[in-house]
C-alpha cells in the first residue's frame, strides 16, 4: 500500500513529459493537420507512455500475501524514486 503515492508521482512525471512533447509537436505542425490526425498524434503520445509505464506500474502493485513479492515491490519503488527523482 505504501507504493500507491509513487504510482501517482510516476504518472504525473510521465504525463508532464507527454504533454510537453505533444504541445511542442502540435505547435510545429501548424494548421495543416486534420482533426482526425491531431487525435491520432495525441493517441500516439498516450500509447507510447502507457505501454512504457505498464511494466513499472505493475511491479509497484503486490497483493501483500507473498513476502518475497512485497520486498521486491518496495525495492522497485525505491529504484523508481531514485531514477525518476520522485522523492520531492
Amino acid at each position, binding site marked *: *500500500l*505504501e507504493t*500507491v*503515492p509513487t*504510482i*501517482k508521482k510516476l*504518472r*504525473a512525471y510521465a504525463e508532464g513529459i507527454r504533454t510537453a512533447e505533444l*504541445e511542442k509537436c502540435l505547435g510545429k505542425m501548424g494548421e495543416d493537420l486534420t482533426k482526425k490526425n491531431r487525435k491520432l498524434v495525441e*493517441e500516439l503520445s498516450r*500509447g507510447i507512455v*502507457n*505501454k512504457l*509505464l*505498464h511494466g513499472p*506500474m*505493475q511491479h509497484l*502493485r503486490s497483493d501483500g500475501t507473498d513476502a518475497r513479492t512485497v520486498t521486491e515491490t518496495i525495492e522497485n519503488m525505491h529504484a523508481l524514486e531514485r531514477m525518476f527523482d520522485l522523492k520531492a
Partner: protein
Amino acid sequence: PVREELMSCLKAGKRWLREQKPVNAFREFEKALPLAKQLKDTVEEKKAARGLGASCQRQGKYKDAIKYHTMVLTISHMTRESSGNTEAYGAIADCYTELGDLETAGKFYDKYIDGLEQDD
C-alpha cells in the same frame, strides 16, 4: 451552432487548464456538458466530464473530481465504448491518494494498470 458552441467551450476549457486557471476551465466545461447531452454526443460528453474532473482536481476538490471522473466511466458503461476509461481510473485513483484512502486508490490503480496495455 450548438455543436460549434460546444466545441468552443471544450477548447477554451482545455486552454484554461493549460494556463493553470482551473476555475475558468470549470466554467467552460460546465457550459459544455449540457450542450453535449443535448446533442446526444457521448464522446464529447465524456470530454466535458473529464474536463470538469480535472478542473476540480487542480483546485484540490478531490471528492467533486471523483464524481466527474466517475461520470466518464458511467457513460462508457452505458454506451459500451470504453475510450477514456484508463485515464479516468488513473485520475480517480490519484484523487483517493490525495484524500489519504490508499486502499481504494490501489483498487482503481489496478484497473488503470490493466488498461495501460490496451489501446483506447
